[in-house]
């Protein structure tokens, strides 16, 4: 697995972008299929301009990309960035799965330990 280096600045932007519940929600909504900014803004009790601002923050953090479609701006999730975080977390999942299997082996091998066992 090759992981592109993120600069501190990029990392900060990414986390700032994901720190807001509305922005996380926007990312989730556009994960599978793109959505226009106007359609997105109809989902929230805030102005079109406010939603546009959120989208701009996400765009700067490389979490979404905007595509022009006639007069509409279609927002898509930038899956590469999300996939990177996901792939890294999966690595830790594998690590823990292996640990849990070893734990199970120990439990299968050993009778329960009591303090009495530790006495010389």
């Amino acid at each position: 697995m090759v992981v592109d280096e993120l600069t501190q600045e990029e990392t900060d932007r990414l986390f700032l972008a994901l720190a807001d519940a509305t922005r996380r929600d926007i990312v989730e909504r556009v994960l599978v299929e793109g959505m226009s900014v106007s359609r997105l803004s109809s989902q929230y009790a805030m102005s079109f301009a406010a939603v546009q601002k959120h989208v701009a923050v996400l765009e700067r953090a490389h979490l979404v990309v905007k595509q022009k479609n006639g007069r509409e701006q279609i927002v898509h999730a930038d899956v590469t960035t999300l996939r990177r975080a996901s792939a890294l977390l999966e690595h830790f999942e594998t690590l823990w799965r292996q640990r849990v299997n070893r734990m199970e082996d120990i439990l299968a091998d050993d009778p329960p330990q009591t303090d009495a066992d530790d006495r010389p």
Partner: protein
Amino acid sequence: MPVISTDIDTGELTMTLVAEFAADTARVWQLWADPRQLERWWGPPTWPATFTAHDLRPGGTTRYYMTGPDGDTAAGEWEFTAVDEPSSLAFDDYFADENGERSRDMPVSHMSAELDSAGDERTRMTIVTRFESIEQLQQLTEMGMEEGMREAVSQIDALLAG
């Protein structure tokens, strides 16, 4: 397979794993409480861990190092933030340098384990690992990558040989 479920939250940067064991919580707690047992599961067979200090109390410190096949060592330190025998523990996981000193420039990750009784002689264990940033996650993965890959390869070898 003891693992019941895993959940990865990219937004929160957490990995949650739930496993069930055929043993009571007191017995499963021993896996965490007894450093000799910790040594048998914390590091992969190719990178066994040696625990040199293990003070399982709130504020207590645990020190360990792992030894690779080429004799390389990687050291770590835990600081327990919560311990409630035999049901839960939480700690911050730091890197340490070759002298066992906590390294200041390496990011810390957070880990918690909860043990719940799941009926007669059964225990459900929930592990949550939380990272502070993708950059940190990347750093940790790169450091652990080799170890994880070697481990995977040795497991495949064992399967093929079996």
